[in-house]
Structures are given as C-alpha cells and as structure tokens.
C-alpha cells in the first residue's frame, strides 16, 4: 500500500487510506478501491474529471460518509474515521483535519465572521469578542479584508467566499487542510491569488494539504504529489513534475494534453469517448474503451496500482506503450565515386497516441528517415522496432507484410502517390483489396466511412472521379483516407502540406489531428516548417545533416530552441509580424511571473 515516492511508515503517516470503497444505492460505485498515505506537511493533489469520485473521497476523509456506503479504512491522525462515534469525529474535525467544501457553502442567514469564528466558539468556548478578533486575524492571513466579516455570504464575491472558507478551515490550526475545488469558477487573476495564498499559508503553518481539483494546472502548482482519479480509482500516483511532465498512464497523458495552457503551443487534444456512467463502469481497466493502446487483457482483467517508471501506475503495460523505436539508424547513398551520408546514428521513439514532429532544413535526411521508418528503404545500420517486433528489411512473408500494414506513409506529392487510372473509390479501397479480408460490401462501407471522416463526400459522383479532377487538398485527403483505411497504428506524413495552398493546408492539418485523436494513432510529421509542426505535435525532433541536434516538447523547441538548426527554422517560419509581437509579449509576461 506504500507509494513509490515516500518511505512506508504506518505510525507517523497523518492520513492512511486503504481500499476505500463508496457505493451509493445499489449500483453507483463512486469510489472503487483507493489507497494512499500522506505524511505531516506533505501536499497531495487529487485530480480527475467530473464524476471521478474526488469529492466523495474528500468527504470520506472527514467522516462525512460512513458505512454502509463507505467501506475500507480511512485513518486520520491515528483515528479511524469510518464507523467512528460522533465524539471521535468531533475531535478530529476542524482541529486535526479541516475541509473547505466545494463552492464555499455558507449559511446564508449568518454573517461570514460569525461562521468563520464558529469552530473557535464551538471548541474552545471562546467569547464572542475574542473569537471575532481571532477571525479578523485569520482573515488577514488569507488576504481577506476583515471588514467583510460583518457581511452576509451573498454580499461577498466568489473569491472572497473561498478565502473565508479557507480562514474557517484554518481556525483551529489543523494538521490537515483539505480544499475541494478551491479555484473552480474563478477568473484567472483571482485564481492566481488564491493559489499563491494557499501556498504561502502551507509554508508558514506547515499543514498537510490535500487539494481536490479538476483543474490540472492549478493543482500542479499546489502539490508535490498528484493522484489521478478515473472512474473512482487511482490510475497514477507520483511526483507532480513527473506525472504532469511525462505522464505514464494513457489517461493522465490525455488529461494533460486536454488543458489549454500558455506553455503549450499545440492545439487542444480532446479525449475521445466519454467518462463512464458510474452505474456502468467497463470491466477490466475502466479506461480501456477510450484507450488507444487497449488490448484484450485490458478488457479481461483489472490492473493494480503498481510501481512503474518511478511512480505508481494502474496499467497492464506499466503506462504508455512505446509504439515505434528506431535505434542507431545510418544510411549512405552512393553517387558515382563518392558517398553521401544521409543519416548518422539517428534514434527516435514514438509512444502510443503521441505525435512527433521531425523537422529540419532540406537535405537534412528527414525524408530518408521517413522512408526507413515505413520500411520503404533499408537502413545500412540500426534497427526499427514496432512495439517489440523488429521490422525486417525484406518484404517477403505474410508476417512481415501484416506488420508493414501497421505503419503507413502519406507522401508529399499526391499526384505521384495516387494512380491516375483509378477512381477515388478504387484508390481508397486498394489496401482492403490487397488485404482481401472483408467482402466487397464491407469494403465499400469502410471506404465511405473513411472518406467521410476526412471531410470528403462519401457517395455520388465523387467516388467515380479520377485524380485529375480533384484539387490538391482533396487529393491529399484521399491519400490520407487510403492510408488510414487499414487502421494502422502509426502514420508517417512526409511533408503532407508542402504542395497545398494555405487554406488546404489548414484543412489537411485539422483533419490529420482529428483522425489521430479519434483513431489513437501515433504520428510522425516530417516538415521543414516549424509553424506548421508546432500546432500539431507533442514533441519535436530536429534533424540537421543527418543527425538529431535537438529534441523536446514542442513548446520548448519552437519557443526557446537551443540548437542552431532549430533557431534558424524558427526564424524562417512564416509569421504575421503583429502576432509575433503579441506572443512575444505574452511569453515575456509568463516568464517573469
């Protein structure tokens, strides 16, 4: 039951939760077996989407939910909260563990000041005037104007009420403060203030803090450790920097990608599918219907929270699977009597569902690498592994061919990539014809579905058109539909928008991203255009003269590049002058805070 980041200690842990389960009614399991511990002075953020069971968990910590709904064990300050008698609960609440509930609910017929002082008066029988003085002191600590204490709750703004709730929680100087959605619904400036205040107070008073939030960035700023909840159970638990910076569980990764933050240049990445109805939680791993790397074991058996990648992850594969790994790829081309080295010991990794941008100037070797990754060119040295199977250089054999089908290539010039003799329908159907698994009716359906998904007409005369009747953008989308019809795991797009004009380029990139998310594909996008790449990819790998010169998250490489090649590419990338000034200013502001 220990957590990887902390030494196991039963006696000194402030909070010890073991196999907590909460069931409402006959069929709603809000919490399905959560275990964690928290030492004095530590901070933990519990994050997840609405309905993941976070608030329910918080309520259990202060004994607001009792058996028979709750089962398992919740120990706070050495006291077992589940099944405790009222006296024990009273002694723990407010003085050991205090909670600021979601939405800062106050009694509307009493003044804020009276309510903030309530714990003091209740526990220590303090006189009204003394309590009032202490409440004012508390208000000042939470940066709340003490004169507001004489007002009624409805006369305070949301931020002020939150602070009042915080003051109330701090009244008896508890060892554990639980904040349930402290920043929800606040504007960004207020949010920033609340976060800063809480951090300062935690430092000063030294209490342990549990922050419950659906807002990942805020939670990340407040806690050293984070626990990601999905459908009532923990899927990842570890160091905040690790979990947010390099999420291991597919859900954590998807969650991080779904948040709009200034530090990401990439477009939002919605998580496909929907959070499950608590009455109908999927069997096995609850996330498997939305997971891009799910296999049959994920449906059949439930993964435990185990140590993996220096944190705890609940996944049969220990977290995101590696989809493609190229190791030490070198390639030489012989031209007459001299030899050109196109690639020199290049290594590249792509995880499931991840998109990687391969960027470099012309002649850097990126197209060569794209061809080697898709098996159309054999490297002179090095290996390419798809999952854990090595890609052979030869095409012979059924096994090699079925492996090849899982990586597809979209080429730069659709005029070359599509046969002029075939109709649109025949073109998109070709991979299915080669595969020869589906019957012709099913093939037609698959073709129509794919064409529709890339935004092209899926019936009528368009299907009988030939490529010379189509625009560049339409042709490239046909090529994309063709590449996707076999549902590959990885797509390599070699300068897919180079031959398209601006509007078609935007459309193509949008479609590419959308398809990637929906189908859970890995994507390698090869380009010379930094502006294009950074909108689409999670990570950027910079190649120059056949070598990898820089690698990192897209916001890092595209905004503060360290290598010369990357800097040149950033400068060369097209930009509207006024917009760059704006973003520069925003980045300066961000860096200074």
């Amino acid at each position, binding site marked *: 039951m220990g957590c990887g980041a902390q030494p196991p200690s039963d006696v000194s842990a402030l909070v010890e939760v073991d196999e907590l389960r909460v069931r409402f009614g006959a069929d709603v399991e809000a919490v399905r077996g959560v275990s964690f511990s928290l030492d004095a002075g530590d901070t933990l953020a519990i994050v997840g989407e609405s309905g993941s069971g976070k608030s329910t968990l918080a309520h259990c910590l202060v004994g607001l939910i009792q058996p028979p709904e709750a089962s398992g064990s919740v120990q706070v300050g050495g006291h077992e909260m589940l099944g405790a008698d009222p006296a024990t609960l009273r002694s723990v609440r407010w003085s050991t563990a205090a909670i600021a509930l979601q939405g800062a609910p106050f009694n509307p017929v009493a003044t804020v000041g009276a309510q903030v002082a309530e714990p003091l008066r209740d526990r220590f029988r303090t006189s009204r005037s003394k309590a009032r003085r202490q409440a004012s002191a508390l208000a000042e600590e939470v940066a709340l104007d003490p004169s507001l204490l004489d007002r009624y709750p409805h006369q305070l703004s949301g931020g002020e009420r939150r602070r009042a709730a915080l003051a109330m929680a701090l009244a008896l100087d508890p060892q554990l403060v639980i904040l349930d959605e402290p920043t929800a619904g606040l504007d960004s400036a207020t949010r920033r203030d609340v976060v800063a205040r809480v951090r300062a107070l935690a430092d000063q008073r030294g209490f342990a803090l549990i922050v419950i939030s659906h807002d990942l960035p805020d939670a990340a700023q407040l806690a050293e450790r984070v626990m990601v909840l999905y459908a009532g159970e923990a899927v990842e638990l570890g160091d905040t920097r690790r979990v947010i910076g390099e999420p291991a569980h597919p859900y954590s990764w998807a969650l991080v990608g779904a948040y709009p933050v200034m530090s990401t240049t990439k477009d939002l990445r919605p998580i496909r599918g929907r959070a499950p109805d608590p009455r109908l939680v999927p069997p096995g791993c609850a996330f498997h219907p939305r997971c891009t790397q799910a296999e049959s074991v994920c449906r059949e058996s439930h993964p435990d929270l185990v140590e993996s990648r220096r944190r705890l992850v609940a996944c049969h594969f220990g977290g995101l699977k590696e989809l493609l790994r190229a190791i030490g790829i070198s390639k030489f081309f012989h031209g007459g009597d001299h030899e050109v080295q196109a690639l020199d010991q290049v290594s590249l990794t792509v995880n499931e569902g991840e998109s990687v941008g391969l960027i470099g100037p012309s002649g850097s070797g990126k197209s060569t690498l794209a061809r080697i990754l898709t098996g159309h060119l054999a490297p002179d040295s090095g290996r390419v592994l798809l999952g854990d199977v090595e890609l052979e250089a030869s095409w012979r054999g059924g096994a090699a061919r079925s492996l090849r089908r899982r990586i*597809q290539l979209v080429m730069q010039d659709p005029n070359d990539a599509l046969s002029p003799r075939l109709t649109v329908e025949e073109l998109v159907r070709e991979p299915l014809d080669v*595969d020869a698994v589906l019957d012709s009716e099913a093939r037609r359906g698959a073709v129509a579905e794919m064409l529709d998904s890339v935004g092209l007409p899926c019936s009528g005369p368009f299907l009988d058109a030939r490529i010379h009747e189509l625009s560049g953008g339409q042709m490239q989308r046909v090529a994309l539909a063709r590449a996707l019809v076999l549902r590959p795991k990885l797509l390599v797009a070699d300068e897919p928008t180079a031959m398209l004009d601006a509007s078609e380029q935007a459309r193509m990139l949008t479609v590419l991203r959308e398809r990637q998310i929906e189908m859970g594909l890995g994507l390698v996008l090869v380009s010379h255009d930094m502006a294009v790449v950074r909108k689409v990819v999670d990570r950027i790998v910079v190649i120059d003269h056949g070598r990898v010169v820089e690698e990192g998250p897209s916001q890092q490489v595209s905004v503060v590049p360290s290598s010369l090649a990357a800097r040149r590419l950033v400068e060369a990338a097209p930009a509207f002058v006024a917009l760059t000034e704006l973003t520069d200013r925003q980045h300066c502001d961000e860096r200074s805070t």
Partner: protein
Amino acid sequence: MSSATHRSRLLHVGLTLLGVVVLVAVFAPLLSSHDPKAISGPALESPSARHWLGTDNPGHDIFTQAVFGARVSLAVGFIAGSLTMLAAILVGVLPALTGGFADRSASRAVVVLLALPGLPLIVLIGSLAGDSRLSVISVIAFIGIAPNARILRAQALTLRQRGYITAARGFGGGPMYVLRRHLVPGLAPLVVVGFVNWAGLAIGLEAGLAFLGVGDPTGVSWGLMLNRALNEQSIYFSGMWTWWVLPPGLAIALTVLGFTFVGVGLEPTFNPRWLRAT
C-alpha cells in the same frame, strides 16, 4: 470538330476497314468459286463475268487471289505483331522491373538493334533466311522489337518509380499484385497500340518483301501479286494494271490504313486524362 470526335471517327473508319478485310478473309471461299492457285482460265484475260478481275500471267483468277491474300496478310500482321510485342515485353519490360545486370544488358542490346537500318536489314536477312513464310514473319517481327522495347522500357521505368507503387507495397502488396494491378494496366495501352501499329507495318513489310521476291513464291499474297504484275512487261501499256496492280495495291494500302486508324483512335480509351481534357 473536336479532337475527341475526330479520333473516334478515325477509330470507326479504321474498324470498318479492318472489319471488311476480316470478313473477306474469313468468307474467302464463299466469295469466289475458283482456287487461287489453280489455273482457271486463259492468261491475262480482262475482267469478265467468270473472272471479276481477270486473270494473271499463268492464268490464275485475280479476284480469288486478292480475296485469299487477305488471309495471308491478316495472319502475317497478327502473328508478327504478337511476336514483336511479346519479345518487346521480354526485352524491354521484365529487365526494367528486375533491374541490375539483366536491365543493363537488355538496354544495351536494344540500343544496338536500334542502330541497325530497318529495311536493308530485313531484305538481307529475308533473302538469306529462306523462302518459308515463317521466316519472313520472324524477320519482320525481329526488327519491330527494338523500337517497341524502348517505349515499353521507358514506361516501365517511369511506372516503377511512381509513389502509388511504393504505397501499394506499403499495403502489403507483393510483386505479383503490383504487376497485376498497376504495371499491366499502365503498360497495356502501349502494348495494344504498339501491336496494332506494328501489325499494320508488318503487313506492309510482308507485301514489300514479297514484292521484292523474298518469301514463298508459291504462296498467295498481295505482295506476290504485285511482284508478278510488275514483272509483266506490258502491265502499264494495256490498262491491265487497273485490274492487276490496283486491287492488291489498294488492298494493302487500305488494310495498313485501317490498322493505323485503329491505333490512333484507341489512344484516348487508355488515357483517361486525355479523354476528359478534350
């Protein structure tokens, strides 16, 4: 008149011409009652009810010869055309697809063949090869190999580099699939058009060779008819040429024209962009 309609009219005219020739060849025995090789009447007789185009020097019926000659011409055209294209595929396409040593040697062989002068060569080989019709056909087929192989090889090389071939391999298509689905349709138009053109040329060449005395002197062919006609010294002085020279000459011309028209007319069928662009 637009190009497309023009071409399709040519196609129709060509097909009609060839159709007539084919019908004549097929129904030859029904069209004439004489045996082309038998002496059926007095020599050099003018056209009459019994001999529609008169008789030649030894006394054969000219009309019968003309009609049966169609069979020879068509056979020569068809066989020579097929042999040429088959050889051109073997020499031009297969090496280009496999590459390497085979490709290099084949392309050098083609270059050498192209350098040789056609007609003198054909006459030389023909006269040396002997008198059988088969050797004539072989010789005609032989000189057609190089130009067709060059065209087919160029197309095969172009096709092989195309992105959609790469893509097809990416879907798991093996070499046989690529051949069947992409290479054959890409080369077939050239093969068909080449066949049609060369068949026409072959007919003309055969006629020419027969005219020059190369080939089977006992056979029945338009060229041989011309050979005999022009050996007759008084052919032009008596108006004999109208019923002895003109018919076979016209037959040759119209047949070759028919093949050519079909060849030209077929092109749009195989080139979709051309079809729609016009």
